[in-house]
């Protein structure tokens, strides 16, 4: 793309430059970092000295800018760098930030705003009031398009292997929208109640709040909304779509199969689930003990699936996958998990009393568990199944349960919380111990396990240190039962004729699409990956369903944005840096009731109360800003919101550059003696301008501390200007006059208010500026010459100013006010230093863009072809900015015409050379 000129910054200087260049016939690209052009001027109440409405003056210019046929405006965009081309032009790299809203579709209706679940400070109202993450910058924004603020994917959401939008449902709960939170999880999986209990919550390990004091209880919040839904509603609350005519068979009804069925059914597929066992659910039903996951919760979750018309055929092991295809299924998904246990592989496994952990857990779920009252049980293994088996043994009456594990506690694959809970329930641990033989009596019953002590050697392929025998000595742990829980493998022998099955019995499929070499056959979950956990299996089911849908609709097998194409996770350090201080909160309450002698299988964890849930959700830091709750997407009548949009980086070729990046306002907290940021009733001039504007954040001018209508208002001029203590000796030129303007406006808005300005001297050098000042005095504003040294606060929020009263003998005096306005000055915007990558843009000694000959050649910089317009070159009011932009534009036009002439001459010379 080629333009005659690039204008960086869409404030009054940038707009004026663009319009004048456009009027001259030059093609202009205007790049503005904010969602709207207009800069600060559009945020002002009125302008001095005419007291014209700022919006009324600025609005038409904004509109003209973006509608001008020669101007292309890139809002929400940043210039990443500008470099010179060999032809003497410039190549600019421009990043167009995703706004997640299609500007062509958005009508600016703002229906998305009230439903947004995230509140952040409104920078366009000087942080005086909250706005939403989905927001229109301000009512007069041009373009009038909503944008959605996203800093990245929140770490909790980013880490979820199921692609569940954890931040989203937490934000919905904080807003009291519990059913919407339930529905958001349902978008990923029907297993809301199950995951609310049995998920290992990797989200909580990544929670940024954990770096402050403790993670928020994300998993338990999911359970909270699941329990509320199931208490009050029948079915999932989702309407089954019209059938699309395709049929899909899913073999295996564990978490992967159920999730895939759910996803496909929501798309209108006719889904049949085949389950070998008498009841559906796989490990959810047969491997996770009821004290962690009650049966009725699994049944409610499964009922979500059947509510959409999914047929579940139980007691139906599938051995012939091709036959399903022949029976009319367009695609088949294998999701049979890892139902086989790895044997211990030691002598004595045939003795009565030896069984696998999976067998034990299944027997107990079927009501056929052993009675181990008073017996001793050894569980071999260190994974979650071993922990479940050991805790189950305690509930079956075992007086002593020992977990024997060949590595140390730190190397255990079981979740730390599971190990901890097992220990709480009286399970004992023998670490660095490997069984070498099961011992039995003459009746064939177990009497003990002979074990060998181990030490940890070098790391193995898994990265964990390999256990090695310490010596040749052994010892015996006496016991009445031995439970082997050292691993699980898939049962895939029957599939080997149609699918590629590895030596480890896992099915080999494409790692991205889960499609096998037989195109209608897919496989997902533990049958592909080996034993993992429920949440990973849910993610697998989602992926497989997505790919099956793509396959059956003739589309490329890609586009799984739920897990493959998320926005990068936001940097936690950057999140924490958003606040200066954090108020510590109490950690979420312990909701477990564990005893060292459990006697039944009743659930060991209670649900959070509503108060606890709100407190937990209220601690969320909104890391990604937008929570991805999706409420805006639903609310948008124009279907304009796409949360999967991406930033774009483009390169543009331009003939000249105009730098019009404006200024920064002085940070008032750098004058701590004035109390801004400490006393709520001390505000800045920009904050007062917002309070006076027609689109103000409050209903009128009110004290931010308590909402009182102020009657005594003081101004402190030169805050951060002409002040070497803050390294700014310059006069900011506009503070006196904006203060005088505000004095007059306040007297109009609050006729009973007294306005006093504490000043060093009034600088009113401009057309009709002095008359404007005198008019203010005549209206009743008081002006006291002398610097304010300190502001303190009284118990009622009133403020005491200590100042030098020069015109009355220089006495140190104190006066009380309801509200104090600091007339903050301006500072250079040093972001310009990053603009040019291969040439150095000179700044003057005060870090404004240098004009080497500003008297006779205003607007020209040290780089040929680069010009500066407005306050980027020094403090200027609106009038001066416009005038300066005019000068810069003249320079640009002259430069472009000179270059055009030079190019023509060079072309003619080249033609003459050729003709010779």
């Amino acid at each position, binding site marked *: 793309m080629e333009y005659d000129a690039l204008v960086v910054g869409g404030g009054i200087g940038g707009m004026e430059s663009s319009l004048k260049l456009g009027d001259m016939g030059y093609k202009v690209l205007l790049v503005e970092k904010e969602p709207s052009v207009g800069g600060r001027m559009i945020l002002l109440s009125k302008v001095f000295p005419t007291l014209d409405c700022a919006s009324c003056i600025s609005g038409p210019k904004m509109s003209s800018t973006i509608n001008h046929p020669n101007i292309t405006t890139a809002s929400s965009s940043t210039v990443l760098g500008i470099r010179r081309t060999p032809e003497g032009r410039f190549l600019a790299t421009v990043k167009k930030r995703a706004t997640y809203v299609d500007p062509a579709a958005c009508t600016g209706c703002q229906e998305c*705003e*009230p439903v947004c*679940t*995230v*509140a*952040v*400070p409104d920078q366009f109202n000087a*942080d*005086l*009031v*909250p*706005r*939403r993450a989905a927001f229109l910058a301000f009512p007069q924004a041009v373009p009038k398009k909503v944008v959605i603020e996203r800093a990245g994917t929140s770490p909790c959401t980013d880490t979820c292997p199921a692609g569940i939008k954890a931040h989203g449902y937490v934000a919905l709960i*904080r*807003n*009291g929208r519990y059913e919407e939170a339930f529905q958001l999880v349902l978008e990923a999986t029907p297993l809301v109640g199950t995951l609310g209990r049995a998920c290992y919550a990797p989200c909580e390990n990544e929670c940024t709040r954990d770096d402050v004091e403790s993670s928020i209880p994300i998993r338990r919040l999911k359970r909270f909304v699941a329990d509320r839904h199931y208490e009050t509603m029948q079915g999932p609350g989702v309407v089954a779509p019209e059938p699309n005519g395709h049929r899909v068979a899913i073999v295996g009804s564990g978490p992967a199969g159920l999730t895939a069925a759910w996803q496909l059914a929501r798309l209108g597929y006719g889904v049949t689930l085949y389950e070998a066992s008498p009841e559906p659910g796989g490990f959810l039903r047969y491997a996770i003990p009821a004290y962690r996951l009650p049966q009725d919760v699994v049944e409610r979750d499964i009922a979500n699936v059947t509510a959409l018309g999914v047929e579940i055929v139980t007691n139906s092991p599938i051995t012939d996958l091709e036959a399903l295809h022949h029976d009319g299924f367009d695609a088949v998904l294998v999701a049979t998990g890892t139902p086989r246990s790895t044997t211990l592989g030691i002598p004595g496994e045939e003795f009565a009393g030896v069984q696998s952990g999976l067998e034990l857990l299944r027997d107990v779920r079927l009501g056929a568990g052993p009675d181990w009252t008073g017996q001793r049980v050894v569980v071999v293994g260190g994974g979650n199944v071993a922990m479940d088996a050991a805790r189950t043994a305690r509930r079956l009456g075992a007086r002593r349960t020992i977990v024997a594990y060949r590595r140390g506690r730190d190397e255990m694959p079981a979740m730390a919380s599971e190990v901890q809970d097992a220990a709480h329930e009286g399970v004992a641990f023998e670490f660095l111990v490997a069984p070498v033989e099961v011992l039995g009596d003459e009746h064939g019953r177990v009497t003990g396990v002979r074990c060998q002590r181990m030490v940890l050697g070098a790391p193995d392929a898994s990265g964990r240190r390999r256990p090695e025998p310490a010596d040749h000595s052994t010892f015996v742990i006496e016991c009445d039962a031995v439970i082997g829980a050292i691993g699980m493998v898939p049962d895939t022998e029957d599939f080997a004729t149609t699918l590629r099955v590895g030596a480890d019995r896992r099915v080999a499929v494409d790692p991205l699409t889960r499609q096998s070499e037989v195109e209608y056959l897919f496989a997902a979950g533990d049958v592909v990956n080996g034993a993992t956990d429920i949440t990973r299996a849910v993610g697998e089911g989602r992926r497989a369903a997505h790919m099956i849908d793509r396959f059956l609709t003739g589309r490329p097998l890609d586009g799984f944005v739920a897990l493959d194409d998320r926005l990068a996770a936001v940097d936690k350090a950057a999140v924490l840096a*958003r*606040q*200066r*201080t*954090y*108020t510590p909160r109490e950690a979420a309450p312990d909701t477990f009731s564990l005893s060292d002698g459990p006697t039944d299988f009743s659930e060991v964890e209670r649900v959070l109360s509503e108060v606890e849930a*709100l407190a937990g*959700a*209220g601690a*969320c*830091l*909104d890391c990604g800003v937008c929570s991805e709750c999706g409420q805006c997407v639903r609310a948008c009548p124009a279907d304009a919101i796409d949360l999967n949009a991406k930033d774009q980086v483009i390169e543009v070729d331009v003939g000249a550059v105009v730098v019009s990046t404006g200024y920064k306002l002085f940070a008032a907290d750098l004058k701590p003696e004035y109390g801004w*940021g*400490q*006393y*709520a*009733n001390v505000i800045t001039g920009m904050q007062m301008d917002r309070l006076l504007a027609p689109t103000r*954040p*409050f*209903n*009128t001018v*009110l*004290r*931010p*501390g*308590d*909402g*009182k*209508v102020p*009657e005594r208002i003081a101004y402190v001029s030169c805050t951060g200007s002409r002040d070497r203590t803050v390294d700014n000796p310059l006069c900011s030129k506009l503070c006196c006059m904006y203060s005088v303007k505000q004095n007059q406006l306040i007297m109009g808005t609050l006729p009973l208010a007294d306005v006093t300005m504490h000043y060093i001297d009034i600088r009113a050098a401009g057309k009709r500026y002095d008359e404007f000042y005198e008019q203010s005095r005549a209206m009743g504003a008081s002006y006291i010459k002398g610097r304010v040294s300190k502001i303190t*606060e*009284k*118990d*009622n*929020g009133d403020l005491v100013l200590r100042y030098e009263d020069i015109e009355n003998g220089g006495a140190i005096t104190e006066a009380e006010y309801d509200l104090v306005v600091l007339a903050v000055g301006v500072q250079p915007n040093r972001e310009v230093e990053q603009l040019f990558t291969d040439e150095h843009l000179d700044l003057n000694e005060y870090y404004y863009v240098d004009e080497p000959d500003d008297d006779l050649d205003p607007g020209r910089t040290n780089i040929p072809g680069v010009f500066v317009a407005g306050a980027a070159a020094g403090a200027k009011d609106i009038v001066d900015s416009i005038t300066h932009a005019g000068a810069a534009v003249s320079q640009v036009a002259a430069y472009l015409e000179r270059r055009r002439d030079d190019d023509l001459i060079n072309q003619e010379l080249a033609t003459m050379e050729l003709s010779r």
Partner: protein
Amino acid sequence: MTSTINRDPREVIREEPLMHRPILEALAGGPLTVPEIAEILGRPSEEVMIWVMGMRRYAKLVELREPTDDGFFQYADTSREVRS
């Protein structure tokens, strides 16, 4: 009560959605000023001011036409009928 700011404003603002219910419950008996709501909630008035103004922005609350003699506006729940 002073208006000294004790918490980071971003933290206070983030809580606005969480505070809708307690504030609306406080207004169940009729319109109240910011200090009155603050007293009922036991929260600093400058924090309540932020929440009330956020709720006003999104039309959950509306101010009565005139301030009280003490110079405070009263705010009412927009879902309830109020006589100013």
